[in-house]
């Protein structure tokens, strides 16, 4: 199945068959992020912008590494990769680094990584392989219960960190694959209904700060200086940006520190303040284009695994963008999700590049047919 000679000799061919518009959009987004971070650090390239660039280069390396692997090899080790990522989640409570009351990071060779960021993609990988492998006439347990268990395990582990935002993205990303793989829509109706019914019960398991955030989301004025502060200041920054923005590096909300977390989760707000509606619209268009190209590439694959994997990566990416922008515009509760390629954050950057590496690999190897294996 894996031919080493073939791997090396085809490296150049692989580089040639990359979809460059997609890579171009990724690099564009990186530069938008770089410009934003340069503004936030008040023109000091050596702080955030430099690290952001280093991370992006590291991300590109991962991207190409993933491309050069044989897709069948990735398929073969999908469960192993997933299992390793689950292990990394399990060991976090013992070896993890605590920050702001949550333990989300582990230290690998001096680099802090957030395993939950990678789990988003490894789960997609595992589910893609799983749905690829089961036969169409599989029973209820195989088609629903087992993938549900695969999904719920990382979600549960991330919730206990606690990190509700990432857990939700993992869950939604997994569920989106259920949908793509063709699960009867009635289950989704039943599922949504039962989640709505169990909300009061789930409520009790939320941490106080999470409850506060949700309550504040529904009524930001409830606590304008506490949890509502982030949302209020974010909306003020966006709104005061107007159509054309206050100008690059001229944002008062951001430069006078009224915006919280502006280099990470609220970076979109800062762009909105400085570049106005024109800027935010353009940025949304770039994201939309990236997602459209991803879907188009995904559907070109012949194997189900590739389609599932590519669409899954695309969905996770979309959820990222939607939750982040929804959050900073006050449409969604503040759950702490970065804006991919733009927010300052190493794990998120590397994980997204890993995801797009998988997607691009699927595209390059779109004609490979992967046989069903025993799962």
């Amino acid at each position, binding site marked *: 199945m894996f031919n080493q000679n073939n791997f090396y000799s085809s490296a150049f061919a692989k580089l040639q068959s990359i979809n460059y518009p997609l890579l171009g959009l990724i690099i564009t987004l990186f530069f938008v992020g770089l410009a934003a971070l340069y503004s936030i650090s008040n023109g000091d390239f050596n702080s955030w912008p430099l690290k952001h660039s280093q991370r992006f280069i590291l991300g590109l390396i991962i991207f190409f590494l993933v491309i050069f692997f044989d897709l069948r090899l990735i398929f073969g080790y999908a469960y192993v990769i997933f299992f390793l990522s689950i292990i990394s989640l399990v060991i976090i409570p013992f070896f993890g680094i605590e920050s702001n009351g949550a333990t989300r990071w582990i230290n690998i060779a001096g680099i802090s990584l957030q395993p939950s960021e990678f789990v988003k993609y490894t789960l997609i990988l595992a589910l893609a392989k799983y749905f690829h492998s089961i036969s169409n006439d599989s029973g209820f347990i195989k088609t629903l219960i087992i993938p549900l268990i695969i999904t719920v395990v990382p979600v549960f582990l991330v919730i206990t960190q606690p990190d509700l935002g990432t857990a939700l993205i993992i869950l939604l990303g997994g569920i*989106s694959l259920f949908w793509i793989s063709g699960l009867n829509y009635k289950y989704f109706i039943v599922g949504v209904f039962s989640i709505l019914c169990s909300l009061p019960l789930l409520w009790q398991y939320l941490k106080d700060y999470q409850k506060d955030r949700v309550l504040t989301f529904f009524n930001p004025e409830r606590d304008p200086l506490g949890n509502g502060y982030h949302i209020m200041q974010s909306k003020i920054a966006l709104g005061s940006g107007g159509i054309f923005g206050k100008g690059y590096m001229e944002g008062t909300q951001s*430069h006078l520190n009224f915006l919280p977390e502006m280099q990470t989760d609220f970076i979109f707000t800062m762009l909105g303040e400085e570049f106005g509606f024109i800027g935010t619209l353009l940025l949304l268009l770039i994201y939309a284009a990236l997602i459209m190209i991803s879907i188009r590439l995904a559907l070109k694959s012949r194997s189900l695994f590739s389609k599932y994997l590519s669409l899954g990566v695309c969905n996770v990416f979309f959820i990222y963008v939607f939750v982040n922008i929804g959050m900073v515009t006050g*449409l969604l509760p503040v759950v702490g999700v970065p804006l991919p390629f733009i927010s300052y954050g190493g794990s998120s950057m590397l994980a997204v590049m890993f995801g797009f590496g998988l997607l691009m690999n699927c595209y390059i190897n779109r004609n490979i047919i992967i046989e069903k294996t025993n799962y």
Partner: protein
Amino acid sequence: MKKSGRFIFQKYDTENLINRRAALVTIAKAGVFSVLVGRLAYLQIAENSNYKKLSDKNRITHRFLEPERGIIFDLQGRPMAINKQKYEIIIIKEETRDVEKSLVNLKSILPHANIDIEKILKEVNSRKNFIPVGIIDDLTWEDFSKINVNIHKLEGIYPQIGFKRYYTQGESHSHLIGYVSQISKNEEESNPLSKLSTAKVGKIGVEKAKDAILRGKLGNKNIEVNASGREIREIDRVNSVQGNYIQLTIDSELQKFCYERLKGLSGSVSVINVKNGEFYALASSPSYDPNIFSKSISNETWENLLSDKYKPLINKSISNQYPPGSTIKPFVALAALESGVSHKETFFCDGKHLIEDTSLESGYKTFHCWKKEGHGNVDMTKAIKVSCDVYFYQIARRIGINKIAEVCKRYGLGEKVFKSLYEEKSGVVPNKQWKLENLGSRWMVGETLSAGIGQGYFLTTAAQLSLALAQLINNGMRLSPKLIYDIETSNVYNERIIADPKYLKIIKNALDEATNAPGGTSYRSRIIGKYKMAGKTGTSQVRAISIKEREEGLIKNKDLPWEKRDHGLFIGYGPTTDPKYAVSVIVEHGGSGSGSAAPIASDIFKYLFEKKLNLKRNEIFNV
């Protein structure tokens, strides 16, 4: 491609199914993006102007600027109350999410500082949100820079440079000049500076009387601040305006001399120019250091000042009232002269004077002269010279209380000297009507006798006595008492004559004899030299002497507890040839006027004659 008959998958081939599902997802994504775009359009276009305002409100903060207080100068132009720079910290409730947390952080940065978090919280909550409340009033430079370094941890807390009042003359002038302190609740309405909690207001003395002139005008500025409230840049500013200066008639060196001379005693001194009514000294003892009020004063210090039996907080020259005792006699004598009594008429003093009193068993009441064995035959001059009580009992009885009261009032007794000083007391000059109105009973003859020697209901202050004497020996010229040079009190003096100079000459001569002729009550305190002083002693009782005590022999003052000893008074003027100054000295429970008050007056006159014979205003350049 297999077709599934099972219920899990829909009945499409897998390829088709995925495409259909992916298409649905794509449509959903497009929908979500439209919502996001719509939301952004709403926030950034429709609501733009609202959020723009909120953004400006965030970043622009209005700050008031404390004006510098006007300076108080003395007669010679020496500054007596000035302003010094100080470092202070304030907190603004509106600009912090958690006042207590900020204060706790502050405490951890300045562990040695005395920060009463509860007290400050109370203060913060009792004021409007935007009003800065002072936390530490007077900070060292080290602490001030520590705060500046840690400012990001101290939301709503700001270090700033302010002014503190400094009194160059210290305790010798504290009663007169007063002090400034925090604006209290009931002063907020009337004081525009109350928008600034760190601003101070005059609490007593000249600082209070002329606060409106001294306080100046608030300035303000709009500044751009960051989220932790740190000033980034100034947008615009209206400078504060310093308060106007004030010049007092007080000569600070003379005042200091008087205060030093009173040291160890409880009492007061008043020095006035008999020609123009300018007060050159108004000293009171014991005193306090007015500069302690620039910092927040501890409860213990305050309690000690309040409970001290020598009453250091009271300005005894204007706020403590005393029976004038024998110092009233020159005025009673004047009343007698005006009533037709000849100064040559003699009365016989055998040490006591009897009046009918049917309420007593014996049918009469005895009034004693201070000299038990009596003075024999006395005329007016001798009566003043030796301070014969029996003489004054008799003339008082003859001319009546209303005549005595009329003369005393004409000379300014029983009336506030300075209209502007809030803490001044007016004293009492009793007459028949006064008693009926205030005590609801008829006047008794015996009370006229008491009034004739300045006892009974009579109450005066040191300032009043000096003013009254000044008008008596300047040939009866009405004076406008003056303490502060400002627009309100012009330099025009009312020169109305208020007594016949012929009579005044007799009294002046008698006062001269009382000091400068052997046998006079203040002869021991006379000044030998080119310039002389003359004056009248007074001893005012603070207790009633019972008949029993009189029979058993009077207890000497020095054997009595301090509070029961007589007050010693002296009023004098000098130089006798061409009077320039009138001085009154009151020594509380000093025993006798001749023993306690006259020597002090004598020293003050010596000082005046030697160093201050021609005191004149050194006009400050008016800005």
